[in-house]
Structures are given as C-alpha cells and as structure tokens.
C-alpha cells in the first residue's frame, strides 16, 4: 500500500526530450516507473526513450491511459503545462520546475482547484513509493519499502530523512516532496490526510521549514485527532527575519513563519519534534518498533 503512486501508475512526461527531462525519465525508468508517453508540442509521432511522444497531453492520455503527468519544463511554460494536465483530467500532476512566477501559479492553482487533478509542486523533488514507482528526482538508491510515510517541503532534506530512515532499517511507504514555493499544490494537511487513509503507513515524518503557516495548519489537523504518530523536523531555526533563504517561501515576515512558532504549534498538537535528522530517525524507531529485516 502507498499513497498517490504505485507500480500501476502510468506516467506521461511533459518535456520528455529536454536535457533534464530525458535524464530524469531514464532515472525513473531505471527505478521501475511505468513511463507510457511523452509530450512535446510539435514532436508528436516521435519515439523517445522507448515511449511515444505526443503533441498534447490530451492525445497522450487518450492513446496510452496515462494517469500521472510529470512536468519538467522551463519556468515560463510550467503553469501552462499544469493547466494542460488538469484540462486532460490527469488525476495527478507533479511539477518539479523551479522558479515559476507566482502570478502564474496563482492562476494554475485556481484551475487545479476547479479540476479533478491533484498537483504536487512546483519547485519540488517529486514523490516516490519505495520499490514501486518514482515521479521526480529523489535519488534512486536511498529508499527502501517499509511503513513510514514522509512529507517534506525541502528536496535535499527529503533525501536526508529517507536515507536516515533506511539506514536505521525503517523503510518507507511513500515520500512526497511538496516543494518550497508560496503557491503550490498539495500541502502538509493534504498529504497527512492521504497517509491517514493508508493502512500500510504506521507513522509519518514531516519536514517543514520557516515561512508561511502550512506547518501550523498541519498542527491543527493533528490536534483534531490524527491516528498515527507524527515526527516533525523544522529547518531554519537560526534564520534571521526578512531574509529569504533560497526557497521563495522560506522567509520570516513579522512574527509569522518562525521555526519556533511551528515547533510550538506541532508540539502542542501532539507531534514530536526531532532537533536533528538523527533525532527524527530515533524517534520514528521508538514509535514503529524494531526495524524490519534488511
């Protein structure tokens, strides 16, 4: 069991012939992801990396039954690609593009909200169901199957947590990198809701960072009664106010969005906080029991 993607997921890659698109499609194929199509306007009819290329997402969906769009296109085209996926009613769109203008994302998000499509990203590493399927660029070798769900705003910290858990023998169900932009698709609360319904997931690791109030919203959801243990980690504890720390969303403005306010809210809600990734791994171990066999 897992959330959002598994071995039956059929992926269409928007931007499959680009340098990054090609590289990560090959990586996904190597992981076992069932890539069924690519989309590049004007390249319809071609074959790339062993899959048919179409001019439009809608053509690709009709011809191949794709049910997940992996969007890896340059920033000026990202919002449009998201809206195209939504218009083709693809159930899940994953956009890894970094640097999408925020007004573009506001429009794309409005389209997503009015559609049946779920969006992960943009500016995220994508997601991975251990041993079954990955959409995005979480490194292939770090994850192993198990019973811990992971949801994180930061890409590299997603890898850190997965690797730490794997090395300690705590495998994962699905790891979702939701991304660090101020306007994005799935948030912590959305992913926590999905993990709630997934029987295989016994505990959730949540990796937040400064800026915004999505972690506080997650705390509210946990406080209202969450059936699984949540171990949280917040980066940016020492970041000064008013300085944007790389991610467009990672900025403390006024008194909101500080690491402490997030840690306080999560602690009060009943989540446990790890001060370091090592702590997080240990705390997970205490909650899910002995490591599963290697």
């Amino acid at each position: 069991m897992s959330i959002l993607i598994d071995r039956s997921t059929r992926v269409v890659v928007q931007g499959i012939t680009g340098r990054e698109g090609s590289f990560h499609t090959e990586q996904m194929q190597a992981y076992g992801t069932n890539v069924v199509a690519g989309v590049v306007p004007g390249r319809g009819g071609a074959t790339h990396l062993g899959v048919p290329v179409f001019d439009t997402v809608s053509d690709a969906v009709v011809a191949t039954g794709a049910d997940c769009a992996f969007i890896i296109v340059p920033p000026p085209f990202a919002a449009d690609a998201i809206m195209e996926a939504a218009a083709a009613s693809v159930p899940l769109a994953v956009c890894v593009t970094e640097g999408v203008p925020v007004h573009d994302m506001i429009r794309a998000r409005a389209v997503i909200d009015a559609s049946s499509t779920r969006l992960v990203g943009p500016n995220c590493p994508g997601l991975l169901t251990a041993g079954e399927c990955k959409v995005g660029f979480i490194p292939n070798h770090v994850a192993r199957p198990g019973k811990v769900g992971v949801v994180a705003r930061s890409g590299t910290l997603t890898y850190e947590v997965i690797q730490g858990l794997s090395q300690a023998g705590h495998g994962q169900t699905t790891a979702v990198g939701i991304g660090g932009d101020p306007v994005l698709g799935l948030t912590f609360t959305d992913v926590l809701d999905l993990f709630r319904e997934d029987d295989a997931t016994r505990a959730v690791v949540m990796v937040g960072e400064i800026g915004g109030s999505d972690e506080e919203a997650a705390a509210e959801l946990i406080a209202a009664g969450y059936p699984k243990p949540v171990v949280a980690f917040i980066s940016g504890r020492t970041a000064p106010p008013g300085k944007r720390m790389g991610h467009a969303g990672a900025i403390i403005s006024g008194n909101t969005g500080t690491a402490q306010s997030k840690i306080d809210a999560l602690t009060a809600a009943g989540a446990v906080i790890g001060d370091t990734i090592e702590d997080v791994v240990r705390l997970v171990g205490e909650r899910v029991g002995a490591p599963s066999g290697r």
Partner: protein
Amino acid sequence: MKLLEYQAKQQFAKAGITIPAGRLARTAEEAEAAARELGRVAVKAQVPVGGRGKAGGIAVVDTPEQARAEAGRILAMDIKGYPVRSVWCETGLDVAHELYCGVTLDRDRRRMVLMLSGAGGMDIEQVAETRPEMIAKLWPDPFRGPQAYEIRQLAFTALRAVPALADRTGRLASALVPLVQTLYRLAVSLDAVTCEINPLVITASGDLVAADGKLEVDENAEYRHRDLAAELAVDALGDDGASGDDPFEVEAKRRGLTYVHLDGDVGCIGNGAGLVMNTLDLVKAAGGEPANFLDIGGGARADVVRNALDMVLSDPKVRGVFINIFGGITRGDEVARGIIQARDELGITKPLVVRMTGTREEEGRELLREAGIVPGVSAVDAARQIVELTRQGE
C-alpha cells in the same frame, strides 16, 4: 526586485493613478532647483526600507535654500545600512484623510489579496495587528480580477469603520472602483508580490492621490520585466557603482549565486535551500555563528563550487567553511573536483570541512582524501568539527 518610492510612483502615474508633482535629485543643487520650480516641498530619502521618516530621512522645506541644505544632509545619511543616493522632492498635499490600499500575496489563500483601510499612514502595520477589523480584504478571482461590485463592497466595509468619512462614503466608494482596478491590473502586469499605496490621500478638494508607494516584483518573473529591471538598475547606481544592498549579496547576485550574508564567521555551503538552512542550524547548535547561507542548487558542476567557495571566502570575517552535500542531481565527484580546484587555485589555507553523501559519494570522498581533505559522513559531526577548527586560536 524592490522599487524605490519614486520608481513605484512613476509606475502608478503611468498606469493613471494621480501622484503629487515631484522631481528626483541626486545632489543638493538639483534639490534646490526642484524646490525653485515646485515651491514648498518634502525632501524624501530614496531607500528600499521603511522607517526613513522616523530616521530623519524626510524634511519639509519652504525655500530653495532650505531644500539645498536638507538634501545635503539627507544625501549624506545612511538609513538602516542603505546609503541615500537620491532624494525625491515632492509638493505637499492638503490632506483631509489618509487611506491604505494595497495588493499583496496571501500565501495561505494561494491568491493575491486586495486590502483597503480607512486608517492609512505610517502605523498601518500596527493597525493590522491591533485592529484587524479596520482592514477590509478581498481575494479576487485571478482570471476575472476584482469586479466593480466587489470593490464597492470592500470600500463600504473599510469606510464605514471611519465615522469622519460618513458624509462621503458613497462618493469615495465610486471613486475607488477605477483606482483599485488600476492598481490590481498594475500588480498583475508587473508580476508584483506587493503593490501598495500608503497613504492614499483624500485631499481637501476630494481627490485621491498616491502619496507614498511600495512595489516589489517577483524575482521569478524578472525575465518578463528585463526593461524595467535595467531601468531600475541604472537608477539604483550611485557614483561608486554600488547599489544600497549588502555588497556581498550584490556580488553574489552578479555571480549568479543564491547567497545571504549573515553576521558570523563560519562559511556555509550546501545543495538545496532546506539542507543549507539545516546546515546553519547545525553550526549554531554546535556553538558556531554562520557567516552566510549559500545554496549551490541542484546539479552544480565543479566551477559553481569553486565560484561558491571564492564568494564565501571573500568575506574577511570567515574563518573556515563547512560544505554540506547530499547528492541527488548533484554529483559528489563534481563537487569534490570543485573544492580541490578552488583550494589549489585560490590558495585557500583556512579550514574546510566537507560532509558528502548521496550520488557518487564514494568517488567524491576518494578524490577529497587523495587531496588531503578528510570527508565526513555525518552532518552533525562535521558541524562540530568546523566550529572547533574556527574557534582555534581565539
């Protein structure tokens, strides 16, 4: 990309929003000439931070001689670290009342929010905190934009909270419709994350005039506004060619690096914003003070790593550098090559601690070992190590 007050006002004026008559002056003589032309003026420091009035960066003068003297004084000032390079000389308004009107990103709602308040002026942030009901809000549909009836609703909500305006609420609401629509369209067309008029003055004769403004353009959208960026860059330059920003951050931007300058002495480099933030936290937890945030991003090649090290070490306060790499798209061997190259070519003698894991970690570590740099595996240990090394000799 933050615009200065006069740059924001020029954008407002171009869009059709009334602003007071004004002239830009870069010297005391130019300010004198502006006052001769305009009469009684306010001489206002042009800096990209708030609080300049309280810092003494605004003076109201009656004569050209006074304008010259005050401009001379203000142009010699440094406000919150920003040297004043120009002043905006502007005619005063006959103020009947001050409103606030702004468009900004509301990340919780994933939309822009339009805000209007009858309590405009310097203390709007305090109003927002203590009397939030004084600020009316609207989250326009991003495709339709704010409709006239929505703006009227917003206006009536905001203005009814101000008894002094009771006799003209209807007239004001009608006048605000086109102004608010213009401001919202301007925000969208410029990809602004903040576009506000504060105060929006109601003059004695009943006109609405933008007396001060703030405009910040989304960095991700700068590619759509190259002309504006070039225009602003020219304007922001003083005689010495530097803008008001932190000189290290300006240099980093020129080099294409994501860098934030901090106060400490431990240089920090990593791949990925979250990882670097965590790196700073680890250094601090180990008793050190980070000198900077530097994210080399995903897939960085050797030359980017060399560039990053050179940048971090250009800060003379830096006593050593912690490089924290978790390779995903980034390859350990590329990073290692960059580090070794930088050390040899730049003659780095200060301590370097490298923690390396992920893609091609073994190859990377081997290269480092061969070059005499001991790679760490645990980020926590590496943080302790760099703090120890940089504390030696204190």
